């Protein structure tokens, strides 16, 4: 199973405060989107019992410093950082450099959180799936393989019901996994496997968006 996990760098919403004097948000502690980390945690759990290869992909502005060490504590095989200008200005188009980077790679499963903790848009994974011509399914809290290329996913419907669906892979799945990062995983820094590096790709924005 070739799994890609999309990880968005975000400022930790718990630390953010409004600075009334400067009239702007302050205390922007850099971190990673927790729903994406839950997806990564899920992929790592899966890898413990199944043959799987995990690639993490993140998109950042060229001038944005990002410390990927916390991500490399997870047993990932590859890490791709896509540098792309004007990301914060045209943020709905984060999917476009992702499409460029992922379209020729044979991922079976692309995972992420359903929304990011900063903008709560929930757009990137859906747009990515649409451009790649593969299905997208969001707000999933449980996924299990039903067969080699069909996976079963569950999501909540209303207050007290669960719906089960089957999805043909490859697919993009946006998770609404419960917060397990602190309880299950205490990763240690392993670095990437020999011969692997942190790839950097320079992407470019185009088209229209918000």
């Amino acid at each position, binding site marked *: 199973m070739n799994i890609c996990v999309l990880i968005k760098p975000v400022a930790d919403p718990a630390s953010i405060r409004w600075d009334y004097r400067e009239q702007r948000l302050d205390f922007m502690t850099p971190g990673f989107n927790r729903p994406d980390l839950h997806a990564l945690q899920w992929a790592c759990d899966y890898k413990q019992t199944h043959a799987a290869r995990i690639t993490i992909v993140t998109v950042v502005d060229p001038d944005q410093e990002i410390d990927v060490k916390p991500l490399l504590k997870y047993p990932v095989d590859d890490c791709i950082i896509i540098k792309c200008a004007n990301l914060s200005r045209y943020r709905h188009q984060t999917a476009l450099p992702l499409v460029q980077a992922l379209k020729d790679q044979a991922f079976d499963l692309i995972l992420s959180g359903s929304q990011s903790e900063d*903008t709560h848009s929930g757009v990137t994974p*859906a747009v990515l*799936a649409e451009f790649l011509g593969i299905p997208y*399914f*969001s707000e999933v809290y449980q996924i299990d393989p039903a067969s080699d290329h069909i996976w079963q996913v569950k999501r909540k419907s209303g207050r*007290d019901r669960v719906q089960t*669906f089957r999805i043909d892979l490859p697919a993009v799945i946006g998770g609404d996994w419960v917060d397990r990062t602190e309880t299950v995983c205490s990763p240690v820094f392993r670095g990437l496997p020999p011969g692997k590096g942190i790839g950097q790709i320079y992407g470019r924005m185009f088209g229209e968006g*918000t």
Partner: protein
Amino acid sequence: MRKVFCYVPVVDGTVLNEHAWGLMKIANKINTERLPLAGIVVHSGLEKEQWGELPFDEVYHVRLEAEQWKVADAHVQAFEHVHHEIGAAQGIYLFASNPLYHETAVRLSVRYGGAVITHAVDIHTPNSDAAASSFTVKREIYRGKAHEYVTFRSSNPTSHQFVTMSPAVLYGERMQGQPSVVREIHYDNPTAGKVRFVSESVIGWEELKITEARCVIGVGRGLSGAGSMADIVRLAELLNAPIGGSKVADELGLIPRDRRIGSSGSAIDADIYIAIGISGSSQHLEGIKGVKRVIAVNSDPSAPIFQRCDIGIVGKFQDVIPALVAAVQSESSVSAT
């Protein structure tokens, strides 16, 4: 000139969702050019009589099979079909942002080369005669700690604009209208997609979170040393209601810590809360502010919980709960026949 279309939210494909009236209110607000308002209803069995009463100038409705209706792929195809049939020019399309409609709206925005703004909490038009395309959309960011105002770029005025509205702001009085156009658009089964609905089940009361349940039972010190909880568990099963409780109940080990309700526990917003042997301290009441209806069972008629409840039963829970169980049982057997 942009025509405003509402993608009318429907529950389970068969019942108009109350969010429809909230969406309609927003649509009226941004329809500053007073063009005919259109409703697109993709359903799997809404009553026929409803079409003529919907509060739109134009209603276009498509019926899908019940199982297809649950999958965004089928909605995308149905929308494309409607769009093709009515030859809609550039428009503003409003959706409710639940997962099904959110996926549909985002995918359509890609297919139509347009743009999408999701989870909006309000839409502002700058002044009464401004063009609808210049509206700004208010959204919550950083878990609601701040708001942002975003707008569509105007470089491509012919593209469609999609906005999904947060369900939290979609409320309104039921409205009626007399659409001048009511058109059924026949669409034979969409091509089988790569996502298929399998089944739906109810989450049992033991797994259901107290913050998500429609009905929650709360227990307090009144139960301590008073024998078995068997009747309360039976009530929980019948109502599919998770059991939470007061801080004291938590400290006495009657409930797990994460099921404490109140200022130092969870805040619940259930439709019904049944408080058993709970006095109703201010800290506990803090956690049930969002509850619609409270039923209280307490042996002390002066307990403060009776000030907050809709139905109060004065008596020992050992006597009251078996009677309540019997009443619910007979009621459910009546509605089952």
